[in-house]
Every structure is written in structure tokens, then in C-alpha cells.
């Protein structure tokens, strides 16, 4: 699974309240989450997320288990999230909804093109290629199916 996008660089410890605030959670209109993604970090970010690879510092997605955080990023058009480390519930949620997560250390500039390959396990930007932390076979299979729901549907067939 290969992908690419423009880098949106964020700092470390981006918590799920910053990704999607609690005040936006209760709604039937799921487009609300993407529209307000990362709003409390910087309201201008939402407009830059389509086609983006988020290049974050460590501990991305810490805090609440709210899956709306991963959904907000995916639905805003984020192609993948790369960070040196992730909070584990966010990491599982992202895989479960089909949003690629890349555990890696790589220097990056905002707006630079980023390319990655999940099967081959690398990420590349600014002429530098670095390995990506391996996913378990189960997680790879879930991500390849497009998320846990299609994975379980496929298992049943």
C-alpha cells in the first residue's frame, strides 16, 4: 500500500481534544468532525488537510478513546499520520477505520511532498528515506481490508 501527500507538520503530544473537541462530538452529521479537525490547535489547519500526510511529534493522539478523532482526520482527506510514537488507542482506532499510521523518525518541512509504502515499510521526504515501525500481521491485514469492519465482513464470507 503506497501513498503520498503534502506534509502538515505538528508538534508533539497532540491530544484527541485538539484533534476534535468534545463540544463537536454529539451530532448525526459526521461531516462536522472533519470540518472542525484540529480546530483548537489552529483553525486554519482544517483547510490544509485534504491530501495531507500529518508529520507529528511523539505521542500523537494521546487522551480520550474517541474514535471521532481518527475519523475526523480521515474524512478531512488526511492520507496518513506519521509520528515517532502514538498513543495506543488512537493507533488502533486509526488502523480500524483504515487510516494508515506510520511510526517513524524523519526530519520534515511543512508543505514538502511525503511518500510512503506500508508493505515495504518506508517513508521518504526531502530526499531522505527512513524505515517505518512494522505493524503486526493482523494490523496489516485490517489496514489492507480498509479497516476492521470490512476485515470482519471479509472473514465472515
Amino acid at each position: 500500500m503506497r501513498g503520498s501527500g503534502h506534509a502538515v507538520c505538528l508538534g508533539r503530544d497532540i491530544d484527541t481534544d485538539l484533534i476534535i473537541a468534545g463540544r463537536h462530538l454529539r451530532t448525526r452529521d459526521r461531516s462536522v468532525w472533519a470540518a472542525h479537525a484540529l480546530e483548537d490547535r489552529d483553525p486554519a489547519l482544517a483547510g490544509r488537510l485534504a491530501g495531507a500526510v500529518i508529520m507529528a511529534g511523539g505521542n500523537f493522539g494521546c487522551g480520550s478513546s474517541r474514535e471521532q478523532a481518527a475519523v475526523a482526520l480521515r474524512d478531512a482527506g488526511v492520507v496518513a499520520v506519521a509520528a515517532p510514537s502514538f498513543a495506543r488507542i488512537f493507533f488502533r482506532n486509526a488502523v480500524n477505520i483504515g487510516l494508515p499510521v506510520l511510526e517513524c523518525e524523519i526530519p520534515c518541512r511543512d508543505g514538502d511532498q511525503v511518500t510512503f509504502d506500508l508493505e515495504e515499510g518506508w517513508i521518504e521526504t526531502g530526499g531522505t528515506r527512513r524505515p517505518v515501525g512494522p505493524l503486526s500481521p493482523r494490523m496489516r491485514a485490517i489496514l489492507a481490508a480498509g479497516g476492521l469492519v470490512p476485515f470482519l465482513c471479509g472473514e465472515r464470507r
Partner: protein
Amino acid sequence: MSTLSERILGAGAGSYVDRAVDRAYVHDGTGLLARAAWTEIGSGVFTDPDRRYLIFDHIVPANTSTTADLHREMREFAALTGMHFFEIGEGVCHQVMAEGRALPGEVIVGADSHSCTLGAFGAFATGVGATDMAGIWVTGGTWFRVPETTGIFLEGALSGAAAAKDVALAYVAALGMDGATYRTLEFVGEGAASLSMADRLTLCNMAVETGAKAGIFHADGVTRAYLAGFGVEAAVQVPEAGTYPDEIEIDLGDVVPLLALPPRVDAVCPVAEKEGLPVDQVFLGTCTGGRYEDLEAFAATVRGKQVAVRTIVVPASRAVLARAVATGVFAALVEAGCAVATPGCGPCLGAHLGVLGEGEVCLSTANRNFKNRMGVGGEIYLASPRTAAATALVGAVTSPEEFL
């Protein structure tokens, strides 16, 4: 030496295992998305409803018509699946589960990050998201990576005005917000054995604030006696001899009242360093600091006096509230001028019952002080119930040592 996580999950750290989930629970926040994912899977299979729970706690009672509609849909879903259902006012999901519904050695999964609270019983308890929960509903289990363990040796005993919450803030500060990512915090030592179940629940509750997957105590006589009070019999767990590759030591006798400064839970200093900082609101409640013992400690400080600033009390469960009523703790809180709201999460997540205005400061007994969490532009300081009580009486950050 095997860690408790390895013993319960049945494999060494780093291995991947598939495990049946003994108990699984969701609340009105995460239940919605979980139900949507379950419907999308479309098998109609709901495994083991007698060990699955839906507990309304996040926005109770409903604050808007939309919330009310969503609540109704979830009530119907609970009836459809046959899982246990807890109405508004029953309490915070973790506390409801802690009242006789979590046992030593069980694998417990909650669709909430603070599900690690239940490790206090010697269970392997952790949080997941909504889609993982839907998978558990269908298949009855899920996969785990058996976590490495950080040992937290507790020595001595709490003294003075220090409380379990202060110990929690001390270890969060020592480890940092990602100091235990993917790991279990295992609380051991004589100090651990000296702590009550309420204290252990508070300590395990904040494990996730260090990135940990679980926080865990070995079940002992304290655990057995507590569970016996709910009519449940439980076995004890004996720690294996040996050392942890990673460990930190905390002498409980050295712990002083602490404060976490906004917006980081690991930015911790002694309360004394911020003495006199004006606050607009005090909040006593949540899965961290809303148990009976917390209300009792707060009441002991404010009894017969008047709070100087608006103070919101949200008991962690109906059982907590009922006990506080029976013992006079509730009357002491009300007579001191506190506003009391329906058992549940209260304003912790910034949805209702005490949302902060721009520039307002709240001292809270909860577990998170992220930017804007309780309201846009509001700031949250985290502390123990005793510190909250002293602060409520003065209207500014105050060490509880002054009221001993």
C-alpha cells in the same frame, strides 16, 4: 518472573494474543459509533450479552434534543442486544463496573480511555475505540500485544494532607505524558498493600495519562473484602519474586499535595507553589475523584463552613450518592454551598454541567487538563479532593495542610 499482565494474557511481553473478553462496556459517547460499526458489520451477532454493558454517563441527563434522540437510539439498541443497561444517574461507567462487576484475573475492555481504572482489582483492563468494541460484540474477543511492564514500587504510607490523587500526579510527573506508552504500570510494594480500593482505583485511573495500556494492582485481602461487600467472592494474586526491567520508586510518606498545571497533566508542582492563585470554579467528581471517600474528604474540610467560589459536586455513581446521603456527607456539602449534579462525568469533558467561560480557571479533581477541554479559553488545574476543598473555601488555590 512473569508480570501480572503476562499471567492474565497468558504470553510473554511483546507477543500478540487473541483473547476472549470477559467483560466489555461502552458509554453514551462511544456507544453510538460502536453501534454504527456493529450495524455496518451486519452479521446481527451479539456475543455474550450478559457480560456486556451500556452505561450512560457522558451527557446525563440529555443537554439537547439531539442528545436525547441519540440516547433513545442507544436504549433501543441495548434492548435489542440484551446487554446490561444503566440509565442516566447510575454513574460513571468505570465506577459502575467497580461496584462488583470487575474481578481479579479478568480481561476487561471498555470503550473509554480510563477503562484502565479497573486494573485496581487485578484485572487486565484497558480502553479501546468504538470499532474495536463492535468487533468484540461480534466475535467475543480481540487481539492484544502483551505489554512490557513498568514497576511502581510504593513504600511507606500516606501522611498529612496527601492523598492517592497526589501519588497519581507524582508518578505521571515522573514518567511524563508518554513515559509508559504501550506498557502496563504494575503497582507493588508495602505501600501498595496499604492503600484502600478507592485509592487503588484513583492510581490505576491515571495510568493512561502516561500512555500506559493498563495500570494494575495484585488482588489481596483489601480487594477480597471490598468485593465481598458486593456479594462477590474473589481470589488473591501473589506477586512473583523478581525485579522489573523498568521501575520507579515512590515513598508515600514523601508525597505532598500536588497540582497539575494547564494544559499538561505532567506539569506538576506542589500546591504550595501556586498558593493564592484565584479560581472561578471548583469541581469535585469524575472517575478519578468522585468516589465516596473523595466526597467524605471534601466534606470533612468544608463541614460547617461556606465555599467562597462556585463549587460543583458530581458523585461518581448513584451508590456513592446514596452512601453520602446516608452518612451526612451529602448534607455537609449542600449546607456548605456546593451545587450537586446527577452522577456521571459532569463537566469533565466540557459538554455540560459546568462548562468554563473564556479566561476562567477551574480547580478539578479529574484527570485531564488539556487546552479547551472544559470550555474554550478555560484553564484546568488538577488536584486532590482535599486540595479542592481548601481551594473552594478560600476561592484561590490553597494547600489542604492549612485545614488539617
